[in-house]
């Protein structure tokens, strides 16, 4: 069953440098209970895509210029602001990379958690307090009842991220959007947080969109992956399929440029050049300048979104060839 459907989403920003098409024609579906990974480098549009879904784009300079974001038959982009506020936090929750800047430093942890359920579920103070303690226990905060009365600065980075997850899940949302949730954390803490998200997802059946630049995290956590570059979806496939048979030169390059600990050393594959300046995209494929199998048509014409299998698509003039070579 489809939970969320994004159709031809376009979010543009007016900057001094010109119009930046941060998200330019993104479409995808998310099934109930599914974890979708969105990978890309900085500026690829992965975060803006998700901020657009919950209508958190600051206007100006940003604007969602077109598209549909359909949550169970209802287009979020057409709703009035008060209706969107009822979805945000209640039906779609979000956790961000930096838990310090997402928590209010002046409020006790308990109050911040209580706000959620008092607002969305109509809890009384005491109900909300008990629920907050229960949520802190769920995410593995030791001695939760005492710690609920602490302030964010009294927690370590990993603990703050647990608090963020507790807050995000306190209203049992249908969708959790996690934007680089472990990037600011150490590896042993990252492993704990990822394990926690995995466990809670199993228990609650929440769908997850996981935004990350780390292909290792994607491999372990997701069912399906979207690879973004320059505001476009470059490739979309089931996770296993994407890693085993990438159908896009950019994905292929990304996969090859991650050092494999089990491999012998030697020169690491590198994608040449720099990510494109999204404000000044040339016609043709945005990856053409850096692509190792570029041909004349790539610089001239924008590539088609080729269907390789019913659930594997790639934005490339030579998608079929690249896919065949991957075998």
């Amino acid at each position, binding site marked *: 069953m489809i939970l969320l459907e994004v159709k031809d989403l376009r979010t543009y920003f007016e900057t001094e440098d010109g119009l930046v098409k941060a998200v330019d024609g993104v479409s995808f579906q998310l099934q109930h209970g599914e974890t979708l990974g969105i990978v890309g*480098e*900085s500026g690829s549009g992965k975060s803006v895509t998700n901020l657009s879904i919950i209508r958190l784009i600051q206007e100006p300079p940003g604007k969602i210029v077109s598209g549909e974001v359909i949550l169970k038959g209802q287009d979020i982009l057409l709703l009035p602001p008060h209706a969107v506020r009822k979805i945000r936090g209640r039906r779609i929750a979000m956790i961000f990379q930096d838990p310090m800047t997402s928590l209010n430093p002046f409020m006790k942890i308990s109050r911040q958690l209580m706000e959620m359920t008092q607002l969305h579920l109509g809890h009384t103070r005491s109900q909300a307090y008990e629920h907050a303690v229960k949520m802190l226990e769920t995410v593995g905060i*030791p001695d939760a009842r005492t710690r609920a009365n602490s302030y964010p600065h009294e927690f*370590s980075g*990993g*603990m703050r991220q647990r608090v963020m997850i507790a807050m995000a899940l306190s209203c049992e949302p249908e969708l959790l959007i996690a934007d680089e949730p472990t990037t600011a954390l*150490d*590896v*042993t*803490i*990252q*492993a*704990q947080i*990822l*394990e926690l998200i995995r466990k809670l997802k199993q228990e609650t059946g929440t769908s997850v969109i996981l935004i990350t*630049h*780390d*292909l*290792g*995290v*994607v*491999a*372990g956590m997701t069912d399906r992956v979207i690879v973004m570059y320059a505001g476009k979806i470059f490739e979309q496939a089931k*996770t*296993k399929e994407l*890693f085993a048979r990438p159908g896009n030169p950019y994905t292929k*390059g*990304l*996969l090859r*440029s*991650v*050092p*494999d*600990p*089990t491999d012998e*050393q030697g*020169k*690491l*594959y*590198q*994608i*040449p050049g*720099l*990510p494109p300046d999204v404000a000044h995209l040339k016609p043709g494929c945005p990856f053409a300048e*850096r692509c190792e199998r570029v041909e004349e048509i790539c610089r001239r014409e924008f590539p088609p979104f080729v269907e390789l299998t019913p659930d594997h698509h790639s934005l490339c003039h030579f998608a079929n060839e690249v896919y065949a070579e991957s075998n």
Partner: protein
Amino acid sequence: MPSQTETLIAIRDLKVHFKLGGKRVVKAVDGVTLDIAKGETLGLVGESGCGKSTLGRAILRLTEPTGGQVLYRNNDLAHLSGRQLREQRRHLQIIFQDPYASLNPRMTVGQIVGEPLETFRLARGREAEQRVQELLETVGLSKRFIKRYPHEFSGGQRQRIGIARALAVDPDFIVADEPISALDVSIQAQIMNLLEKLRREKNLTYLFISHDLRAIRHVSDRVAVMYLGKLVEIADAKTIYVEPLMPYTKALISAVPVPDPEIEATRQRIMLEGDVPSPINPPKGCPFHTRCPYAIDVCKEVVPQLVEIKPAHFAACVRISPAMPHIEDVPPGSAPGLE
């Protein structure tokens, strides 16, 4: 592989203790002994707050050590006076993590890369300018960029500028402190390859500090693992991945996500409980005992020393010994390292 015969930098019982007022002391680096061989890349890995950056800075005396020695060319860097230290420092350089904060925004690329030439009176005027142009080309930047300012560059390009600046004085030894952490994945590979190329061409020796174990494995000949101010394991890069001995290293390596869904689906992780303890009040005995799945009572008392458990493979854990290197095989409750 470089020959591991000649030691370039010998670190002896190096300590950096920061006084916090009262009786509180942070032992950021607490008795580190380490040899760095000429021509090798030594990877230094650990989680935030373990003291790896402080160790790197203390070697160059950018942070003042509070005890111990750093021996380089028959000098003890930790105790040299101003002028002598400056002379030696020419041979020792550093590349920083944040390419945005480590370049003066009011200086052009030419000035930034040329400044060390001036400071050490290595070149002037036209000669200096030519040298700067060469340096830019060495690190893969166009010499046309010489009059531009740092803000005009991307993160990866700025890191290249920082590398050119470090190379300006023709150093022997470079501390690379998280040089790729702030960069995009596709750019990380470029910078790692550049550093490797420069090492070969210029016969450099690196201390490569990173929390990224995949990168450390790729660039290093040997790896040293640090936890709460102490080195807990040293071995060659492949060995430490395939056969880590110290329980912390085992957990650290098992926590790294592998970019392969098939492996991720089946692999067993060693999950550590809790956070890294505060370095202000570190645990007594083995610093890792609070999180260690193998800890026994004696670990709370005895501070383990780095012992050569296997040839060229050192680990600090009382529960293993050269006769019983694998902790899984050690009988419960016994500490062969103490016998």
